[in-house]
């Protein structure tokens, strides 16, 4: 409740801001440009999604023959009933993915902030060395096999849930990005004066840096969360039990299984379980994207408020 008040006040401020702009001729021109272009871009971006949604409600046989359309062809919900045929399975996958996303994002964000704070400090002698070592990981890698070996043989973690969220908590890019946000929103002088006033690193981080870091936290948090939400690879590699699967893996497996069983020449089994392949693919996209789109507006509020260091000063 408190937060929305805060936001409302900021909104008001922004509205004042924009009414002021509208005064000039350049402001009007700019309005036309921005609303026009944004509407156009939004349309281009949303059009395929409409095709996807209507595709997911189409009849597989018709889609196979005539392709997708803006409106559903032969409206039905076969694809969804196929996916939700065993609701416990997919609900478990939703549950686990949510769990991985929440835990991974929280832990990841904490560690990212800690690390980024250290390498943003000008008085820290080894900040460039550490930055380089962090950056270096994006350029050089040993490939999948030694990485897999590390988590399964060296550290016997296969089959735990830890292994599914842990490998993605930190990203070199996220750390450096966070560093940029910190240096961009907290001037050195403020930190130095706080140090002179006797504040420790922990106090500076929580009292001075974190409050103005909201856009940065929201950005990196969003990236982390999306990464977790869209991942299938780690549970595919490490999960020994279906109940630990991520949502994307659960859905991929539906399609992959159908493909593999059909392509294998030698199964000797006649599959009675026919799957509406085309429409299921589209329904999968809806099933995966839906929840995130519901959450996204809550993240957006952090991109709207313009809290700055100036506010802290006062």
């Amino acid at each position, binding site marked *: 409740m408190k937060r929305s008040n805060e936001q409302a006040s900021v909104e008001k401020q922004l509205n004042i*801001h*924009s*009414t*002021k*702009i509208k005064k*000039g001729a350049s402001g009007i021109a700019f309005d036309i*440009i921005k609303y026009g*272009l*944004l509407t156009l*871009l*939004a349309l281009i*971006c*949303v059009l*395929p*999604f409409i095709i*996807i949604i209507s595709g997911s409600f189409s009849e597989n046989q018709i889609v196979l023959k005539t*392709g997708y359309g803006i409106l559903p062809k032969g409206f039905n919900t076969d694809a969804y009933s196929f996916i939700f045929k065993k609701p416990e399975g997919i609900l478990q996958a939703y549950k686990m993915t949510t769990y991985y996303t929440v835990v991974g994002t929280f832990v990841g964000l904490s*560690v990212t902030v*800690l*690390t980024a704070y*250290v390498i943003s*400090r000008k008085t820290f002698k080894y900040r460039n060395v*550490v*930055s*380089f070592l*962090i*950056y270096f990981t*994006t*350029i*050089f*890698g*040993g*490939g999948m*096999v*030694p*990485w897999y070996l*590390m*988590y399964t043989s*060296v550290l016997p973690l296969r089959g735990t849930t830890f292994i599914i969220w842990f490998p993605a908590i*930190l990203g070199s890019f996220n750390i450096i990005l966070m560093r*940029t*946000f910190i*240096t*961009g929103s907290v001037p050195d002088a403020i930190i130095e004066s706080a140090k002179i006033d006797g504040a420790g*690193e*922990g106090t500076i981080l929580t009292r001075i840096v974190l409050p103005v870091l909201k*856009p940065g936290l929201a*950005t990196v948090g969003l990236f982390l969360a999306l990464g977790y939400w*869209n991942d299938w690879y780690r549970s595919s590699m490490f999960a020994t039990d279906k109940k630990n699967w991520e949502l994307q893996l659960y859905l991929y497996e539906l399609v992959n299984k159908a493909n593999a069983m059909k392509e294998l020449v030698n199964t000797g089994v006649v599959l009675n379980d026919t799957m509406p392949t085309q429409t299921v*693919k*589209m329904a999968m*996209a809806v099933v995966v*994207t839906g929840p*995130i*789109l519901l959450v996204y507006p809550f993240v957006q509020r*952090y*991109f*709207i408020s*313009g809290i*700055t260091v100036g506010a802290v000063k006062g």
Partner: protein
Amino acid sequence: MAKQTGDALSVKLNRQIGKRNLGMLIALGISALIVILSLPFMNWIRISYIRGFAEKYSIDLGKTPIFPGYSMLTFLGFVQKTKAGILGFPAFLLFFAVVASLVLHAVYIVNLIIAKPKRSNGLLGIYSFGKASNILSIIASAGTIWYIFFWANSRTFPGTFIPSPVVFIVLVLAVANLVIVKALEKTELKKYHDHGFFEEVRRNWILFVFLIPCFIYFLINNYLPMSGIYFAFTQFNFRDGLFFSPFVGFKNFEFLVKANLWPLTRNTILYNIVFIGLGNVLQIFFAILVSQVGVKWFKKTSQTLIFMPYFVSYVILRVLVYSLLEDKLGLLDNLLGNLTGKNIDFYNTPKYWPGLIVFFSMWKGIGYGMVVYLATIMGISDEYYEAAKIDGANIFQQIRFITVPLLKPTFIILLLYAIGGIMRGQFELFYQMVGQNGILYDLTDIIDTYVYRVTTTQAMSMGLATAAGLYQSVFGLVIVVLTNWIIKRRNAEYALF
């Protein structure tokens, strides 16, 4: 006591002789000596009892002549020739230690000859090279001794390898040289109010504690698995295992050279340049537009809609693209065919594809990429704009002189990340859009798709994939280090490291 002798030594070594001090001259001599002793013609490893070894590894000594001694730089040639994979991995690490030490010694020597103190930290920069090069020499020589006694002999044929005196000499020289540098550094540190590593830990221990989780993570997730780079130089088999399969030198890289490396490299780089350039321009442009929208619902809705393509997986993108472009049946193909009266034939005409690929890449990435810029714009203090408005700046001027310049640090970070991966293509995008359609390869094949095709038609082709990855990495590293250096010279604030 020790401190006293140390200080005395420090004083002695810092006695000025012309432009340089005594210690520098001695260090120069020792370093030069180490370099000479590390060169390929100096034997570090002697091979004494070759017959037993040759028998065990069924080597025909007539066909593959074996020399009585090898330097650490040439020893890998011996490993390759004898196919004794068990010897490879540690020798590979030692090889790099020697190469690195040689490079650093060379830099150290050149710096000692020039001997020009920097204004900010005097000779400290030069000394840090001295420390690094000698520590590496110590690692290389001590490592070689360990390798011979505790690895090579016990795992192949006992008594085959003996360390030559050269190794021990290098070890002693490097230790002496390190002591000298340390002593020299001491006075310089005092002069510039700087401090060493342990002093830094003592002062900023909390910051080091903050780094512990990050350190553990990257060690487990990245640095230890990096040992897999070695697979680029081996021919894997299960009998010997991952790290002990036969060492084959650069054989795994041959397929890249054979495969018209140039068009692949050209395509990869050109596409990436367009993606980076156009992508950032569009993202910045639309981020500014969105940030300037005052109507709340419009702002939120447009931002959400622009973000949506990010969720369209590449598999679905493939389906969408095909249903747009399919010959005669595709929506777009149909439309254009009716308009122009000509058959467009997208899937047999390579020239359309660069445009198509760029379009869909932009379409998919713009919402995601925009977030960073949007967040940065939100971080800009309102005070700047207020001040600008008082000065009578219109909205275009505000954007031009406030927003855009303040986006620069973010842009540079994104740029450096993109440049590091300039040799890596967006595999999924290309693979799903083009698939196995060879007709389009001239303009759409990138290194990643090529490597994928090679490695999927061949079982156990880990070596090839790693080799290709290494080629991309080395290329990327060189370009990034150069770019970073240029940026650092212009504005150290913006540099990545």
